[in-house]
């Protein structure tokens, strides 16, 4: 079932070369990107070079799981020598001189970087439509948004442009697009993965996570990027997860989070009910828990995320790098204002203003401090719920779809759809989005699993067993042709 294992075995047995594999996916990217707009940068030159190096490693026998594996990175992850735009005009020309820790690790293992994926500007959004480089399309249904903010990564993987990709998740930005594109996405426990080289949105909530075609691929990718990095004070690393997946799950306890079921649409309701039946069939009990603090969670999330964003994005003044207005300025103040006014899109400006406001004298206590208290309360309640259950089950998003082109009109109602996902970021818990067996508008409806801190492996294991009951959708054609008849993986 694992695409990563299958392709590695094919390369090891010389059934396909890393160069052939890379060309296969580059061709997909070049053909499909005009339709999907999933990639901002296509790194065909460097990926061919990396494929050659990968081939040498196979010859020498120094290959790893990732050698020759074509991957994509969200465009807020730094790769030396390639633009890292964050889908913003502000950083359209910014080329970092360092690699993100996650890419360092994958690169060291011989992975092939096909390019950098489109996203909501500075990861702010749930539809991948706030990008300076235009919206991303959902490969399963072009009338739908692929979700966001890691919509480019999710669309690319679901569309067969790459085997897997990395996204970043500050409030659901890996899980929600994975759900809307019908694939697997994991937000690891805060601290499992180093944030070095991830261009920050909200530092205390940001976490890099895998987007993959199945739970096992996600586990491989997670194991490949999790580390305790001396450069990231908040990183802790994580014990390997992939080896756990096939362990039996019988006897585990799951619980539905009551507050996350309020007001969900019928297809989502059905997806949860179907998942409960499948969990039962796997020998997992399902009860219900209540997490009252969830009522305030979306507000608390937006206050904390915007507060940190207002500070993190204040450095983009156009002085040392970044967008510089062509209009002359009379003062430093005016210079900065012009560069920022032109460099940032509407949603980013909105969140900077909001974040500045909630931190300002006189409002700090009313908003920021209160949000922090809600955050602490939520974490306590979720940890208490996870005393009664090993896995918390919920929707990813209360609706199965977000129509393309609808989100910017009414930001607050869009913010509300993030309720189910932001809880994991606020509390640091790992959370995973996996396809259910219920389909709507041409794609499976995603469901979310949450677990205790650093129990990321439990989530992937449960998702793996759910897949074994037949929930996993067929792989994209470009993958199927490679794996033809090799389902045993």
């Amino acid at each position, binding site marked *: 079932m694992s695409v990563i294992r299958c392709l590695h075995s094919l390369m090891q047995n010389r059934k396909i070369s890393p160069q052939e594999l890379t060309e296969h996916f580059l061709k997909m990217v070049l053909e499909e990107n005009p339709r999907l707009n999933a990639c901002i940068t296509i790194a065909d030159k460097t990926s061919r070079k990396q494929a050659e190096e990968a081939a040498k490693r196979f010859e020498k026998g120094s290959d790893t799981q990732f050698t020759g594996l074509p991957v994509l990175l969200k465009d807020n992850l*730094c790769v030396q020598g390639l633009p890292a735009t964050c889908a913003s005009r502000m950083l359209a020309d910014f080329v970092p001189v360092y690699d993100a820790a996650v890419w360092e690790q994958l690169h060291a293992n011989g992975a092939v970087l096909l390019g950098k994926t489109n996203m909501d500007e500075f990861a702010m959004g749930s539809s991948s439509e706030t990008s300076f480089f235009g919206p991303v399309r959902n490969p399963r249904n072009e009338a739908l948004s692929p979700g966001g903010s890691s919509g480019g990564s999710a669309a690319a993987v679901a569309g067969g442009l790459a085997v897997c990709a990395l996204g970043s998740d500050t409030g659901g930005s890996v899980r929600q697009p994975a759900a809307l594109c019908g694939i697997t996405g994991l937000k690891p426990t805060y601290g499992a993965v180093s944030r070095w*080289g991830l261009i920050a949105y909200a*530092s205390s909530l940001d976490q890099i996570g895998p987007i993959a075609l199945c739970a096992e691929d996600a586990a491989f990718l997670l194991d490949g990027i999790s580390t305790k990095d001396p450069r990231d004070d908040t990183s802790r690393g994580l014990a390997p997860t992939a080896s756990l997946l096939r362990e039996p799950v019988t006897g585990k306890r799951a619980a539905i989070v009551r507050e996350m079921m309020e007001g969900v649409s019928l297809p989502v309701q059905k997806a949860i009910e179907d998942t409960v039946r499948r969990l039962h069939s796997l020998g997992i009990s399902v009860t219900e828990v209540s997490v009252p603090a969830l009522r305030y969670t979306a507000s608390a999330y937006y206050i904390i995320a915007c507060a940190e964003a207002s*500070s993190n994005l204040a450095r983009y003044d156009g002085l040392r790098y970044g967008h510089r207005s062509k209009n002359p300025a009379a003062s430093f103040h005016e210079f900065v204002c012009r560069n920022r006014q032109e460099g940032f899109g509407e949603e980013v400006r909105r969140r900077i203003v909001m974040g500045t406001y909630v931190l*300002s004298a006189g409002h700090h206590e009313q908003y920021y401090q209160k949000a922090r208290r809600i955050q602490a309360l939520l974490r306590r309640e979720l940890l208490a719920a996870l005393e009664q259950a090993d896995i918390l089950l919920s929707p990813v998003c209360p609706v199965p779809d977000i129509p393309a082109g609808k989100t910017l009109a009414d930001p607050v109602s869009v913010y509300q759809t993030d309720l189910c996902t932001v809880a994991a970021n606020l509390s640091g818990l790992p959370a995973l989005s996996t396809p259910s067996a219920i389909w709507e508008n041409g794609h499976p409806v995603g469901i979310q699993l949450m677990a205790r801190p650093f129990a990321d492996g439990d989530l992937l294991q449960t998702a793996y067993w759910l897949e074994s009951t037949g929930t996993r959708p067929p792989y994209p054609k470009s993958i199927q042709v490679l794996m033809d008849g090799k389902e045993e993986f």
Partner: protein
Amino acid sequence: MEYELVCGLETHIELSTKTKVFCGCSTAFGGEPNTHCCPVCLGLPGSLPKLNRQAVEYTILAGLALGCEISPISHMDRKNYCYPDLPKAYQISQYDTPLCHDGEVKLSNGRVIRIERIHLEEDAGKLIHESGRTLVDYNRCGVPLIEIVTKPDFRSVEEAREYLELMQLTMRYLGISDCKMQEGSLRSDVNISLRPKGSEQLGIRTEIKNMNSFTFMERAIAYEIRRQAAILDAGQCVQQETLRFLPEENRTEPMRSKEDAQDYRFFPEPDLCAVMVPAGEIERLRAKLPELPQAKQNRYQQQFGLSEEEARLLTRYRKIAEYFEAVISHIQTPKNAANCILGQIFRRLKTEDDKERAEIPVSPDALAELIGLLESKKLRIDLLKKTLETMLDTGKGCMELLSQEDLAGISPEQLESLCRQAIDENPKAVQDFRSGKEKALKALLGAVMRQCRGRADAAETEKFLRKML
């Protein structure tokens, strides 16, 4: 009306760690602009700070030296403001949990200055204004700073100056900062208000920013006292504002008023974990504290019978005090060592820097050996001085420079003949003495000493001369 000064200081001190507080760049002063920089101190997207533990230790040492309590758990905060010398647009500092708090220092007049807090933060870069344009140098960006905040306890200009000098001295003793005001590694903001003498209420204060010279600070406070007193005397209110001091014009001028005060929007730095200081670490650092200048000065006065001035001068520079202590560990008369150091040696250490470095060509052992000769009466004091000068010039040891004859002393026969010679050659002095002028004896004594190059014992010689006359 008669007013009382109410003044507090916020002193910024650059720590002399090898590397910056959140990255591995050098903290060396100077250097080609923008050469001590990296993605972290330039705040490039995707970079993350990592706290330099040495800077934390230095801050704790400062806190312990000033009698502070040390916070077992504190955290860093972001202080947000936009300025071209601050590439992240926030300074990583400490807001509500300073590493050290509630300490005090005692001034020589017995008054106690309470220390409110000491926190750790990063320095900003430097703007260079030249020929109509402004350039930015980020070398200083991220150099660790501590800010020491006092309560408004100063009542005179002299107290403020003494405190600041004491801070400089203490930090240098601790070895945590060179505190060079001209290089900006020690600078102070001064908060000043006046109140009618006898009143307990606090007046409206002004803040003078960035005083980087003792003299300027004294002049600025003196000016501000006059300015505020004139306003109050006229029945008006002092405006709460931030001022800068213009040394050429000897006056202050407003930088910004309370209305456009900055809103720094502090919040906890999410990129850094809490700073934990286990009790064991505090005790380990406490044990490392050197004897501090004030204590040392008192001990020198009491233990060695030095004058206040001698003790103050010897303890003013840590290396000098160490040198002194190394010398006296081998001799019986500390006073002689003090005289040598404050005399011949000090004369050669011309600048503050020289004294701070205390590169003395004569080792403590060599000076002790020389003084030992004096103690064992093998050498007279003026020959000692002369020998010491030669030792300082050549770096040679005293035994190399002094001849057998120099060290042989004078036999009673030789002394008698020398006295005879002096009497014969100075009839005028002899006559004066005989006619009752006591002073004339000194001239004869001098003549003897000249002849024997100071090897004779003065008391002994005088006795001889009297007998013979």
